[in-house]
């Protein structure tokens, strides 16, 4: 049985993405006991899947390395991966959390040597790459994954592959008998940082993500542009040929009563950033066209927008694309709509369409394991009724990394206020 040592002066952080990780580290580095619960087998969340950050065009893994080192060095922080909070009861200063731990089938002995991965044969869609590319049934989710421990896919349990993995491991790290378990522990305050998920592009019927192979999403494009990603950084169409004339459709699912009511804030900047990827991969051969309603380059990001505007290989069309059809002859998506600045109808053919899909809260309003105030858009409201539970990052609004980190740092303080009050009364 896994044992989690915690008291009502412990801070529970739910979600180990950039927000949760930040909140956990800031609290732990202030001397507080913190338990971080993360659903994935590793921390870092979705930023690990980004190639670069806007507006600096620097690498998310660079800051992640620092955060992971902070986590490794800090004795106040306990990280539970493959773990999900199923229930929280109690009140500020006295919560009891139930956490479901899914079996990793690999224990702490794992050195990350990779022998099990080499031994197994079955392959699965690689979720780290949004299904582009394959991974083995015994795998390290990505090269910088922390904890640096392999995972065995439950699908190979009971197969020869599982036995092969076990046999290959020289350090007794593979434990095929691991079972799901639920642990309960105390916490004085909770930072809720379960983050976001990309809006399901299949629901945007007129854009044909489900039907046209050369229509992809912005999160997939991130992986594609990454030289360490599934295409080695090449921007490719479904048939493997290079895409050179790329359309970006903004507000794909955002600012839309039929989909997400809110503006997802980050997609404009993400697309501006992605035009840099096109330029980087293809030089002047790569053309980007951005179809937008409003370009929301906010405060200091404005300068980044200006530099993209000056790039002759990037054009802007103020239009919400009405629909996409496929040119049967060459598989090219054809975008139909109206450039509203002066009313020009277009039917533009592109090699590849990237849908700038929006941010949706990861946890569905109906399935929150705790009573909490949630707004119409599904984000947690900063309400006093939430007691000792504080939202951080994209569970509270569609935020960029900077603002998520900012907000998570504040959330850590609010959690500390609660546990300090507990400490004050308990002495």
């Amino acid at each position, binding site marked *: 049985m896994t044992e989690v040592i915690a008291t009502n002066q412990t801070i529970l952080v739910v979600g180990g993405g950039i927000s949760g990780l930040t909140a956990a*580290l800031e609290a732990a*580095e*202030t001397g507080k006991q913190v338990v971080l619960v993360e659903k994935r087998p590793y921390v870092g969340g979705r930023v690990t899947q980004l190639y670069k*950050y806007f507006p*600096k*065009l*620097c*690498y998310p*893994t*660079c*800051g992640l*390395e*620092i*955060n992971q*080192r*902070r986590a*490794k*060095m*800090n004795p106040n922080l306990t990280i539970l991966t493959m773990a999900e909070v199923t229930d929280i009861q109690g009140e500020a200063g006295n919560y009891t959390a139930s956490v479901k731990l899914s079996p990793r089938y690999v224990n702490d002995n794992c*050195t*990350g*040597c*990779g022998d099990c991965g080499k031994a197994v044969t079955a392959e699965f869609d690689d979720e780290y790459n949004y299904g582009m590319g394959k991974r083995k049934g015994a795998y390290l989710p990505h090269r910088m994954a922390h904890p*640096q421990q392999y995972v065995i896919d439950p699908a190979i349990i009971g197969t020869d592959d599982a036995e092969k993995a076990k046999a290959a491991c*020289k*350090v007794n790290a593979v434990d095929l008998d691991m079972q799901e378990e639920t642990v309960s522990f105390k916490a004085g305050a909770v930072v809720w940082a379960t983050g976001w998920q990309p809006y399901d592009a299949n629901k945007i019927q007129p854009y044909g993500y489900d039907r046209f192979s050369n229509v992809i999403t912005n999160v997939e494009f991130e992986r594609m542009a990454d*030289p*360490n990603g599934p295409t080695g950084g090449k921007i490719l169409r479904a048939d493997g040929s290079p895409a050179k004339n790329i359309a970006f459709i903004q507000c794909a699912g955002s600012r839309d009563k039929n989909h997400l*009511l*809110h*503006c997802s*804030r980050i997609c404009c900047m993400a697309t501006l950033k992605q035009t840099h990827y096109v330029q980087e991969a293809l030089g002047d051969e790569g053309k980007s066209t951005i179809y937008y309603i*409003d370009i*929301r380059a906010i*405060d*200091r990001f*404005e300068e980044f927008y*200006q530099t993209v505007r000056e790039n002759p290989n990037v054009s802007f069309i*103020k239009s919400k694309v009405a629909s996409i059809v496929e040119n049967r002859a060459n598989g090219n998506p054809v975008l139909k709509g109206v450039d509203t*600045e*002066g009313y020009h109808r277009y039917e533009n053919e592109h090699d590849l369409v990237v849908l700038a899909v929006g941010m949706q809260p990861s946890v569905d309003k109906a399935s929150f394991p705790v009573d909490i105030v949630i*707004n*119409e*858009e599904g984000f947690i409201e*900063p309400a006093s009724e939430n007691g000792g539970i504080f939202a951080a990052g994209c569970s509270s*609004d*569609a*935020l960029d990394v*900077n*603002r998520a*980190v*900012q*907000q998570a*740092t*504040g*959330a850590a*303080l*609010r959690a500390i*206020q609660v546990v300090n*009050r507990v400490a004050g009364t308990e002495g």
Partner: protein
Amino acid sequence: MSDEKKFAGYICTGCGIGDRLDPSQLESIATREGKMQSCKQHEMLCNSEGVQMIRDDIANDAVTHVMIAACSRRAKVEAFNFTDVALTRANLREGVIWVRPDADEHQETTQEMADDYVRMACAELRSMSKPASSGEQQLNKTIMVVGGGITGMTAAIEAAAAGYPAHIIEKSGALGGQAADYIKSIPTRSPYSEPQDTGVAAMIASIEANDLITVHLNSTVAKTAGAPGRFSVDIATESGAVVTETFGAIIQATGFNLYDPSGLMQFGYSSSPDIITNGELEKLVKASNGGPIKRPSDGKEVKAVAFVQNVGQSSTEKGQLSYHSGIGDLIAIKQAMYFKAQNGDCDTTILFNNLRTPGAAGEDFYRAGQEKMVTFSKGEVSEVVAGDSLEVKFKDLILDEETSMQADLVVLDVGMMPNSGPDPYAVPMVIDEDAEKTEEAEVKAPTVTVDSILNLDYRQGTDLPHLKNGFTDSHFICFPYETRRTGIYAAGPLRRPMDMRQAQDDAAGAAMKAIQAAENAGKGMAAHPRAGDLSFPKFRMDGCTQCKRCTVECPFGAINEDEKGYPMFNESRCRRCGTCMGACPVRVISFENYSVETVNQQIKNVEVPEEFDEKPRILVLACENDAYPALDQAAMNGVEINPWARVIPVRCLGSVSLSWITDSLNSGYDGIVLMGCAKGDDYQCHFVRGSAMAHERMGKVGDTLSSLNLEPERVVVYEVAITDVERAPKLINDMAETVEKIGLSPFKF
């Protein structure tokens, strides 16, 4: 603690190390050459049994220094986290066996690599001591908050709620700042449809009732001396009285000023009292006291108001702001609602280009504005013509036509400029006299406060360094609170333009960092990014030549000078990057566990084969945060690295001492590769200036090379990112090729 040192080596034979290498040879190197008093092998050192073995030796055999030859120092950190000893790691897995092919013909050179890494680790360990704090530190839990606006008040309230006393220093005679003039604020709670109370009055009341918060009105900071944990601040009041208080950490929340649009003639700001800024509108509406809103010129009720968005911002024009305040459109919606609330028939038109109302709250508020019949027009305003009725000329971008509208009042959306004090590193402006004649008269540059706010008694200037446009942060994406002055955190619009809700979140975050800084300063622990590090640089003053390089080059302004020019180090201002160490030409600065000597010993203990062996040696100094992890990842991918390379991780390229370069060249190394982070405007260096300093210093290495009669290509400096998984090994392998081309160094003995 006794000064008795006891050295113990541990060699892991797991993960294929034992299969690929000869562990008994490594063990004998560790004991004979490396002078480890004991050396043990273990088949899986990181498992509980292996770790326990080391623990027992520390506990029972008084081991003080531990050398672990196993995997990369980035792996199994938790297992090998022995905080009560000096620790070093020889990287035999990612550093050797994973980057070398498993074939007989490579066996000899692979083993040599491993041998050297063990020699290096032992040599490093011998010149290390266990880091311990200086004992000078103090715990002072009181936080100083400069600025009594929304941000500052929130920071004080939040700190106090966590049990930390706070002092607010406010220049004016009242708390509230700019928000005190506002009628309402942009909504901060769902459903985000109505302007809401600013909360200023309630905050002031709660501060007055809070025993932990002290307010200094009509006061400024006359002097800030000391360091986190022991800041000593002279607070001057208007009357001239000065009180001195001590603080653990500081939050600067000095807010913003609005851009002055007088210089933008086309908007007619100076030509009519009815053309006002969004800031002035708040006062105008407040003066109406709930009655009809009257225009300044003749007191006539405003029946049509035009909001001209994005004035003097998002611009590449000289004298205007290159960034955007981000919240101007939300403010315009809020202000249009003031008119609608007073008189539903008042025409309110917002002329925008890109409507920036982001997030859930922003989009909700935009729709709420539309519901209330606020008219939104995508238009570019070319001119506002003064007159009884103001004429706003604009291009309607949707209808694609030049047009105009009439209004009784025109409100200009001007941007927020941080009130951040002078930048210590501002380059003095070169005044082009010709340009002055032609342009200066027409376009005034944005006015920036030049009076100091913090009056830091620091060698490197009186205030927080700016990053860009007066904003005072550094790594604003990953670590938004990191300024370049330890223990001093910026919050609110000083850091970036923001609305009240964000400013309040920001204040809480800054309070978090301030509390953390005070606590850690009390323990003698480093602040971000080496949080918890107890080591700190020590200065051997008898060797110091008062050259002042350390005091000038420290990216964090940690070092002051005494009147003779000797460095006065402030432990809790230091981030432990070692840039001072790299700067010092006489090598008098060192950390307990990282010094000129620890690296020099590694360099010296690499076995440099004689020339006829034809085995060159390449020294690689790699930033531990980016280049070194890139090499680790390359190893995971099985990328080959040339067997002549010996990689030493450094805290920052800024800590690289030139002596390491000259000494290694003198002792027969054939090539040197330095890998640091990106420098320049979008720097990625975690210590801000370290990489840039290193590049600058290495620019002078050419002289050394030519004085030694060596080819310049033997020393190269690269910017390497953590993602350069293919490139980083290639740069090393390229050097091997270079050496092959130009021949071995003649300095082998």
